């Protein structure tokens, strides 16, 4: 589509191509030109190729076409006569007195990009302040910060430039904040750069899927380590405080057998033979149920879709999130199921098939290789597989069995403990205060989560997220690690977080351990079905985070698509309050963001798949320790006032690897990269759908 003259003037530095067939002799005007905003998409889809010598819009307007050309032909000097010499742009990067405050010299309109010549000479600042014509508060950005930035609204001459006036300018972090920050190296990541739709007050959200966005991770420069020492001296007086402690006692189980009663006997776990009767009877919607003990030799067997992976744990002392918890090592509970007609309990994406081809071993939410699965196969009433009560019944029926095992574990002799692990919730006053916001599914059906059961990862006493209205709920990091979430989400299995994922949540662990950060808490916020409700909860989230008075926030989500609407809104709500914010999501190729806003500048991509897709391999694209490390370093970079490089247009897995390099080189820390589906034998779906070989 052709452009208006105004639009063309704004885009005078963009490459020029005609929108339609254009006849020889035509004097090129804006009406002849295609909007360059769509060129990347056109290039990606092979419709055009822009040569290096392509002229700029400012050069071609007014020039005469020497021969007839077809639509989408890029304009080059051999096609035109009378090319306009464009005035050399003022060296906008070179600016004197870069640390001085930015005050506009000219009356600028919204959309204008600030150049050096648009800024007032600081020599008269004192007089202008004295005359009350300007006010140079801390919120006013420096000259170097605003160069090249785009104005969001009209601003007359002598306006001071602040972050909210500029596009994509996140919470401004004053320079001095860098001193307190003690990162030896910082890195930044940005994902899915195409931000086409702005969310406006929860109305009229169109989901437009752009072509060819993806994720990328761009490193930023290292910071001097000398700064670190200074910072640490400054905050010496503020002492760390242990708020609460959680101890995990590990019981090793090497054999699971059916027996007359459920009990732990040495390293053998016996399960009552007729336990299924109670389990089936407990739920009206459950028509049948199978129980299988899957040992490693049976990993090559078929299974219905994996709905959840759960640790087996029980409280010995204290409430969930503190005290002592007993947990079984070497065994997990796996919920699988179909409805009476054999339809998988899963919406679009299910992991049925040969177990060892559909599980990404060792991920936080997956089984570890070698573990024994207590696997239920729940058959729910026909048609209830896609409604909320069906999957809930499958989970609750399974938990009847798990609960009996928990009781047995509680009764087990303390001498059987093979290992103890201690988690401390530490507050670190004076350090950068951060919060983790985890967006969890709350759309009903198999998009729900039970919050805060009595027993770790259990269902009793917990309230479903959906019933709570999906509103933000704050818990302690230790509650997360003690199983306060029982997840009922496992469809789109590669990007959904299982119950075990929370038990081993890597971002919580990484942030909690980081001595440079003061983790205030974890907020769970549901992702409702209806857009209006999405903004309802994100507004509440914004206020909650505001009240916490944090310096930074990391927002994670599971899945992709619909949930990205609230994900974006959460980031906006936090970002607009001047808080540094980093987003973590699966994105890559298939999960590219469909919405965006100026605060979504710092994103980490959870993708591990070779193709950048949801390939229905359990937990493949979920948040792993490597992602947690990147997210934490990126947040530190943001809080330190570092800029995040813009994402590449297309997903480029190398960007993430570059970032990993930057962190490893900067910190000396080795970051283990997760294996992906390529380490597994191809599942049926991968063979037939995703990775078909010619």
């Amino acid at each position, binding site marked *: 589509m052709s452009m208006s003259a105004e639009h063309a003037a704004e885009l005078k530095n963009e490459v020029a191509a005609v929108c339609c067939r254009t006849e020889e002799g035509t004097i090129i005007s804006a009406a002849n030109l295609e909007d360059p905003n769509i060129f990347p998409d056109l290039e990606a889809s092979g419709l055009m190729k822009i040569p290096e010598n392509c002229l700029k819009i400012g050069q071609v307007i007014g020039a005469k076409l020497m021969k007839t050309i077809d639509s989408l032909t890029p304009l080059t000097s051999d096609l035109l006569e009378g090319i306009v010499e464009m005035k050399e742009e003022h060296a906008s990067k070179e600016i004197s007195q870069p640390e001085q405050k930015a005050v506009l010299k*000219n009356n600028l309109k919204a959309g204008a990009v600030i150049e050096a010549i648009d800024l007032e000479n600081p020599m*008269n600042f004192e*007089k202008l302040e*004295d*005359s009350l014509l300007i006010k140079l508060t801390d919120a006013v950005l420096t000259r170097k910060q605003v160069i090249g930035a785009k104005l969001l609204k009209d601003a007359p001459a002598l306006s001071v430039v602040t972050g909210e006036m500029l596009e994509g300018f996140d919470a401004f972090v004053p320079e001095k904040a860098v001193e307190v920050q003690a990162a030896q190296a910082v890195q930044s990541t940005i994902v899915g750069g195409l931000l086409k739709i702005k969310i406006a007050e929860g109305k009229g959200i169109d989901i437009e899927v752009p072509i060819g966005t993806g994720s990328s991770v761009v490193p930023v420069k290292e910071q001097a380590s000398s700064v670190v020492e200074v910072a640490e001296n400054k905050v010496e007086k503020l002492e760390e405080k242990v708020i609460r402690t959680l101890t995990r006692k590990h019981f090793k189980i090497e054999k699971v057998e059916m027996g007359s009663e459920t009990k732990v006997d040495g390293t053998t776990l016996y399960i009552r033979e007729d336990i299924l009767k109670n389990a089936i009877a407990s739920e009206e919607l459950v028509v049948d149920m199978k129980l299988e003990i899957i040992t490693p030799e049976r990993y090559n067997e078929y299974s219905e879709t994996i709905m959840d992976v759960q640790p087996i744990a029980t409280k010995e002392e204290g409430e969930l999130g503190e005290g002592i918890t007993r947990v079984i090592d070497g065994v997990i509970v796996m919920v699988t199921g179909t409805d009476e007609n054999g339809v998988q309990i899963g919406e679009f994406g299910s992991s049925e098939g040969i177990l060892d081809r559909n599980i990404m071993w060792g991920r936080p939410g997956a089984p570890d290789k070698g573990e024994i699965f207590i696997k239920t196969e729940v058959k729910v009433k026909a048609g209830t597989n896609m409604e909320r009560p069906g999957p809930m019944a499958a989970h609750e029926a399974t938990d009847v069995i798990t609960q009996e095992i928990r009781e047995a574990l509680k009764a087990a002799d303390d001498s059987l403990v093979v290992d103890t692990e201690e988690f401390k919730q530490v507050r670190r006053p004076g350090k950068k205060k951060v919060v983790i916001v985890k967006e969890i599914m709350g759309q009903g059906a198999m998009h729900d989560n039970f919050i805060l059961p009595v027993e770790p990862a259990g269902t009793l006493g917990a309230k479903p997220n959906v019933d709570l209205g999906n509103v933000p709920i704050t818990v302690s990091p230790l509650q997360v690690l003690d199983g306060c979430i029982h997840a009922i989400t496992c469809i789109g299995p590669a990007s959904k977080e299982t119950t075990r994922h929370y038990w081993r949540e890597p971002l919580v662990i990484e942030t909690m351990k980081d001595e440079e950060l003061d983790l205030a808490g974890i907020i769970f916020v549901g992702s409702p079905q209806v857009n209006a409700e999405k903004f309802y909860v994100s507004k509440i989230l914004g206020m909650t985070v505001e009240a916490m008075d944090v310096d930074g926030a990391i927002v994670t989500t599971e899945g992709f698509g619909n949930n990205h609407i609230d994900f974006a809104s959460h980031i906006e709500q936090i970002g607009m309050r001047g808080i540094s914010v980093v987003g973590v999501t699966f994105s890559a190729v298939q999960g590219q963001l469909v919405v965006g806003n100026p605060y979504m500048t710092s994103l980490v991509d959870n993708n591990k798949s070779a193709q950048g897709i949801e390939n229905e391999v359990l937990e493949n694209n979920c948040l792993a320790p490597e992602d947690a490390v990147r997210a934490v370093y990126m947040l530190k970079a943001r809080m330190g006032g570092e800029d995040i490089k813009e994402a590449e247009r297309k997903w480029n897995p190398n960007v993430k690897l570059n970032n990993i390099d930057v962190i490893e080189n900067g910190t000396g820390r080795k970051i283990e990269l997760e294996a992906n589906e390529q380490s597994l034998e191809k599942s049926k779906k991968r063979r037939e759908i995703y990775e078909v070989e010619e």
Partner: protein
Amino acid sequence: MKRVMLLKQHVGAPCVPIVHEGDAVKRGQCIAEPSGLGAKLHTSVTGKVAKITETEIIIDADAVQSEEYVKIKECESIVDSVFEAGVVGAGGAGFPTHIKLKTELVDGYIIANCVECEPVLSHNIKLLEENPLIVINGIKYAMEATKAKSACIAIKVKNKKAIESIKKALDGIDNIEVKELRDMYPMGEERAIIHEIFGDWLTPNQLPLEANCVVLNTETLANITRAVEDRKPVIDKDITIGGKVKNGTGSNIFFQMPIGTPISELIEKCGGIDGEYGEIVMGGPYTGKAGDINISTVTKISGGAIVTIPLPEYDGPLGLLVCACGADEERLRDIAAKMKSKVVGVTACKNVEVIRGANKCETPGDCPGQAQGILQLKKDGAKRILISNCSDCSNTVMCCAPNLGIPVYHHTDHVFRTVDHELTRRLPM
């Protein structure tokens, strides 16, 4: 190529043309004579008289012009030479110089006004740096004509190079002294100089004669020398072009540009206007007025042209404080309109006296207090004010308006902000 010779480039009545449409004229030829108070007008170009109107003689200039000119007739006296050459005060007012020189100053003084008070304009100082003799000789001729026994060159202390150059040229001359003045606006105002040198204030309607002196501007003195020594009429003018031109915001000095040259041509010589602009200020930042780039030309009294950045927008109620030393009400209203502000009140500095239709300050550079005016503007509903005061009065305004919560613009701000010059506000303590 058309060249416009304005019939009124001086104080007094317009000149009366002595050529006719169709006449061939040569550069330097007299084309109009004064009727009453005034000065002769000469064409700065060779060509044919294309048109004569009530206000101007338009000459169709030949394509090729030379610097040569028709010399004025040989005269017996300096005063006659100056009259023949059509010399007028080149500093802005355009008072006919021969009348000043007719004054008898027994035991009096010639004061060379080399103060060049308006910031940005700098062609006078440059002339003093490069050719001080042409000015000093002019002083000597003026002394001879008026029988003044001594003279004094008033110059701002900051112009070190020019002072040095003048002092060197004055070596051996003991009846001309250099008087170094503070860098304040409006130090160059005639009565302010006299006050600075003699300590007494003339009333606004008194002439310098009453202080037993005649004040002549730098370029006027040079023109006297040119008239006497070279028999050259005033057909060329020194001028400064500054502001937002592509050659940079420094001052571009043009010596001896033919009168009638369009300002736009000079701006082009400076590379043209750099992007969007606000005004073409004709004259200096304080007393200049917005010119029209399509019409403005060089005249005998042009000081300069400054291309400014656009005026800052302020969409609110604005009060105007008029001062005799800077912009008048009309000029302030012009600026307010360009700022898109609504003028809700106008007040004048207490010192303003209207003499023969022009604002004059009782004591230029010596403030009478401004609080009353500011309070009045506030009462009128002004949320911000635009002032046109001199350095000292602006300082006073700054001591009260911001305390009342009223932000202050000065009518020179956009000019100074263009050229990175210090703004007129509070004075250093």
